[in-house]
């Protein structure tokens, strides 16, 4: 069990770094939602199903949606 946790942990950190460093905004948002999904998986490993579902629906689902919609409202990925 600890091997899986470490692996997922490292993946989360990598996706977080990518989210921060990405040049285009859309890539960083996608990396962010990937990170949320991985955290959902981590929560499931740590026996916290309630939090996993909420994180999945709210963290991965809506947070990314709001960011992409806001980006879209600002005329696409102009930066």
């Amino acid at each position, binding site marked *: 069990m600890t091997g899986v946790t470490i692996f997922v942990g490292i993946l989360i950190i990598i996706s977080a770094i990518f989210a921060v460093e990405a040049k285009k905004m859309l890539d960083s948002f996608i990396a962010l939602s990937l990170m949320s999904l991985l955290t959902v998986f981590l929560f499931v490993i740590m026996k*916290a199903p309630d939090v996993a579902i909420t994180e999945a629906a709210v963290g991965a689902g809506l*947070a990314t949606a709001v960011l992409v919609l806001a980006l879209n409202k600002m005329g696409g990925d102009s*930066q």
Partner: protein
Amino acid sequence: MVYYIAFILIGVGIYGFLTQKNLFKHLVSLTIVDTAVNIFIISLGYIEGKEAPIYSKYTPIANFVDPLPQALVLTAIVIGVGTLALGASLLIKVYEKYGTLDVEQIATKEAEE
């Protein structure tokens, strides 16, 4: 060792703040820091070999992980999203006013006023 993951993630979030110039990246870093804190809180409640805190057919008797941190994280996640939604809408207004989201260009535009 999940503590280390959580701490490194907080570090990445703060790193994102310190280096990035685009305001959207600041929102992303804020989410990263919030998620990192949530992971840290849940990891403090995890007990080896214990089950998820729900009475069900498979776990009729109480042999559970610590449920309180999970309840707290539930609230923390939704607060994070609330702030994020408000932050995104404020960003739209910043973009409408300054036409850019780059911190330096905004600083120069503000200096002109």
